[in-house]
């Protein structure tokens, strides 16, 4: 019994194979253009205002939507749904529990995962989107529920647009696997 428990920690199989050079190159290009677009717009138009467009969890989404484009986690339903749901959860957790940041953060991430599972929108960067708001600067906190639309909604849509354009350029790549 105890032996079985520890044996499970040894693993049972191997890591998937390394992708080819073409896949590495396309992943790099997609992420460069996707993050580049959002960061450029953020820097030139949005940063001087009270608004924000670029958040760290978009970097995590870039890994999926440009680097693992076949993954169910990387599909539009998951990218958009996962971020929006987690943003809502993050803002709500902060508003209810801001005197206890550790509790707000833990609840935000855990509840985001539960709701993404329940809605079939699991997207790992969503957990970061929820946590980023709880831990955020006063500028971010001042956004309140606007956080869901901008930066999260707008940033995610821009990332998705770049993914649709770049991931379908190669005849050996295709995105998405499914929309909904």
């Amino acid at each position, binding site marked *: 019994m105890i032996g079985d428990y520890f044996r*499970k920690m040894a693993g*049972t*199989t*191997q*890591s*998937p*194979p390394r*992708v*080819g050079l*073409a*896949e590495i190159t396309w992943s790099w290009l997609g992420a460069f253009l996707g993050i580049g677009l959002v960061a450029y717009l953020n820097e030139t138009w949005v940063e001087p205002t009270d608004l924000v467009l670029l958040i760290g969890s978009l970097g995590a989404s870039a890994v999926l939507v440009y*680097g*693992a*484009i*076949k*993954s*169910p*986690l*990387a599909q539009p339903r998951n990218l958009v749904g996962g971020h929006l749901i987690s943003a809502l959860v993050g803002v709500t957790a902060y508003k209810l529990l801001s005197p206890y940041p550790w509790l707000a953060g833990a609840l935000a991430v855990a509840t985001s995962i539960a709701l993404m599972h329940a809605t079939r929108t699991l997207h790992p960067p969503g957990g970061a989107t929820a946590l980023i708001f709880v831990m955020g600067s006063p500028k971010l906190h001042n956004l309140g529920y606007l956080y869901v639309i901008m930066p999260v909604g707008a940033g995610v849509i821009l990332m998705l647009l770049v993914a649709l354009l770049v991931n379908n350029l190669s005849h*050996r*790549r295709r995105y998405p696997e499914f929309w909904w």
Partner: protein
Amino acid sequence: MPENRKDGVKLPGGVELQDEDIYEAMKSIPGYLDITPGDFKEVYQLAYRHALERLSRDVTAREIMTREVVVVRPDTPLAEVAEIMGMQGISGVPVVDPSGQVVGVISAKDFLIHLGLAEPKNFMILVASCLKSQACVTLPIKQREAADLMSSPAVTVGPETSVKEIAAIFTAKGLNRVPVTDPEGRLLGLVSRADIVKAAMGGGAK
């Protein structure tokens, strides 16, 4: 079933699917596949089993049965029954009355049991007793007829009985063949273990 993941998956023809086969297959697909070879194999294994179950549920006795069945009458002398089975190379025959009703089944096992052999009653014991004595075996059944030896009433199935149910009957009752009859009990065909194996190998309907 994590404990099974190191084992290969059996495919038809005795081929075994190993982790490295899946690894090589994954390499030939461009793009990062978000699954481990072990998980893929588990999915494959379950999907394969599911397909087999679906097939055995769908295929019926009518589709796989042998239609030209050698039969005997209840009053056929046993010597003749044995000769027919021997010449045709079959190990069992349905016993059918003149109206076409299946009244029993005779198998080689029924002969062995009634030959007056010592235990265990199998073919090599028969050979041994023939080699040891001059009269071969005492034959208490020499002048008897099919009706005296047959297993009766016969276990039968209908034409729409699924292969899965027939396999379960074979296992539960220790049978190797079962007559297929219409609702009136008249013989339509015969399903043997070999017919089921053929169907599972992808032969499907004949």
